[in-house]
């Protein structure tokens, strides 16, 4: 780990000023940044510790029914906030399917959005990686790439974004509130993370020195509360990143789907929302055939970026399953294994 200056910010303005200096990095829960610093992948000249900023630690319910999640709200606190979990159940489920209880106690909402890819060549400073070191190449193309992207990738980078939280956020039209030297602005979550193109190093829409202050979920997203699920397929039951995941939600009235949402995770460098798949379900009656059809649409443009063609079929099946689970209704209690396709309801034992 390189030596760095340590700055403890005592206001958002101070954090923005310190964060705009060359080589400065914001430190929140540290569960990703400290790890990357140990690997030598991140070498900040200055660490700007924002964890004392009380104003970023609140969950505020606004008068219009939307919720403003401060960027320092810990993943576990958000997931266990009763009203939040009832209103946006698939967001709570996604949060609880991520990492471990210890990590969720430390990880913040803002940090989760801004976590880096888990591509092993990105994490190995001796490897060629365009995302870490522009123009150096991409060792993943000829390397271990079975978990890499099947949508939105480019010849320059085939990495995925690993967040669970961001997947239902994209499905629900969340908005990221940011503050920089030039003031505050809002970025819809769908345009927050960027596809790699020929500039994989530019990972998101943040300008140099901008701080994420909050994430807002609009009030109308609560109309999906009765029919939503987040499903996440992992290589082990728990404490693992997604191989593929899906957030599915719908509004059903008189046996017909009035509106539907579908976003896939771990398939691209951003949460992959399919508005075409959503449109195909409107006015229809929920059925296995319909969900298979919609899932197929969501994956229509997918192509393997390496040894990972299996992910396309896996994602398609998981999306269909998530839609079907959502149509059956949100479980009344958080499943014992959140996000797991192996055990849907509390009481269904995965380990016999």
């Amino acid at each position: 780990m390189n030596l760095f200056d340590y700055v403890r910010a005592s206001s958002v303005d101070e954090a923005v000023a310190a964060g705009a200096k060359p080589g400065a990095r914001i430190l929140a829960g540290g569960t990703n940044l400290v790890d990357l610093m140990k690997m030598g992948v991140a070498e900040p000249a200055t660490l700007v510790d924002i964890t004392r900023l009380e104003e970023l630690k609140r969950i505020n319910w606004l008068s219009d029914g939307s919720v403003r999640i401060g960027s320092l709200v810990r993943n576990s606190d958000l997931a266990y906030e009763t009203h939040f979990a009832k209103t946006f159940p698939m967001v709570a489920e996604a949060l609880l399917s991520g990492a471990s209880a210890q990590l969720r106690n430390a990880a913040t909402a803002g940090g989760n959005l801004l976590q880096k890819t888990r591509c092993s060549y990105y994490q190995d400073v001796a490897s060629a990686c365009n995302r870490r070191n522009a123009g150096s190449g991409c060792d993943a193309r000829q390397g271990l790439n079975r978990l890499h992207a099947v949508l939105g990738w480019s010849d320059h980078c085939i990495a995925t974004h690993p967040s669970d939280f961001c997947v239902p956020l994209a499905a629900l039209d969340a908005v990221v509130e940011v503050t920089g030297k030039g003031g505050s602005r809002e970025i819809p979550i769908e345009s927050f993370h960027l596809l790699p193109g020929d500039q994989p190093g530019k990972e998101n829409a943040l300008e140099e020195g901008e701080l994420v202050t909050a994430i807002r979920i609009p009030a109308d997203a609560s109309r999906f509360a009765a029919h939503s699920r987040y499903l996440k397929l992992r290589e082990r039951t728990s404490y693992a990143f997604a191989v593929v995941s899906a957030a599915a939600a719908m509004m059903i009235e008189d046996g017909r789907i009035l509106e539907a949402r579908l976003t896939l995770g771990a398939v691209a460098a951003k949460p992959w929302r399919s508005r075409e798949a959503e449109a195909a379900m409107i006015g229809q009656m929920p059925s296995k055939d319909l969900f298979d059809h919609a899932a197929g649409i969501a994956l229509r443009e997918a192509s393997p970026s390496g040894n990972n063609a299996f992910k396309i079929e896996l994602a398609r099946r998981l999306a269909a399953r998530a839609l079907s689970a959502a149509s059956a209704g949100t479980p009344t209690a958080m499943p014992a294994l959140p996000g797991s396709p192996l055990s849907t309801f509390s009481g269904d034992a995965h380990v016999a």
Partner: protein
Amino acid sequence: MAIQKFKLPDIPSIAVQISTSLFLNGVRMSLSISLTINGDARTIVLEDPRVTLLDLLRERLQLTGTKKGCDRGQCGACTVLVDGRRINSCLTLAMTVDGAHVTTIEGLATGDELHPVQAAFLECDGLQCGYCTPGQIMSAVGLIAEGQAAGDPERVRELMSGNICRCGAYKGITEAVLVAIEKDATTSKERDAA
């Protein structure tokens, strides 16, 4: 496997290197933090901002009960409570917990009397080599405080998944946590009745 570029190790040898770069709002900081560790208020001088809470405990304060497994957030051996919440001390820079209350495995027992979770691990054979055990026990204490598992073994397994046991003592660990939850519920009831 590619060869890793050599980096300064995150071990106490770096402590002799005096950093001139510890700032608070642009002003050089007094290089000290205060922590209450297992009930004792301590003022600790840090010469280097890179020290993790784990290394501080083990290498500076000789509290070696907290273990280092992966040093990367992947095993849970380093689990401690910070202000009552379980976290991985290997991914926590010591500077960032200035002012906090830290509880480690050394702080659980009262004299010779084991903490109920420690006693449950003994009773249920929740260990083999014991290396992961301090982390398992601290994690279980955190889990009980969180109150999300009820007495459901599936929930216990899920909420203990951040603690890897290389010996595979999971069966005993799950039983121990369930016994400890049960004991905790009984004690709370007795306390409420009294």
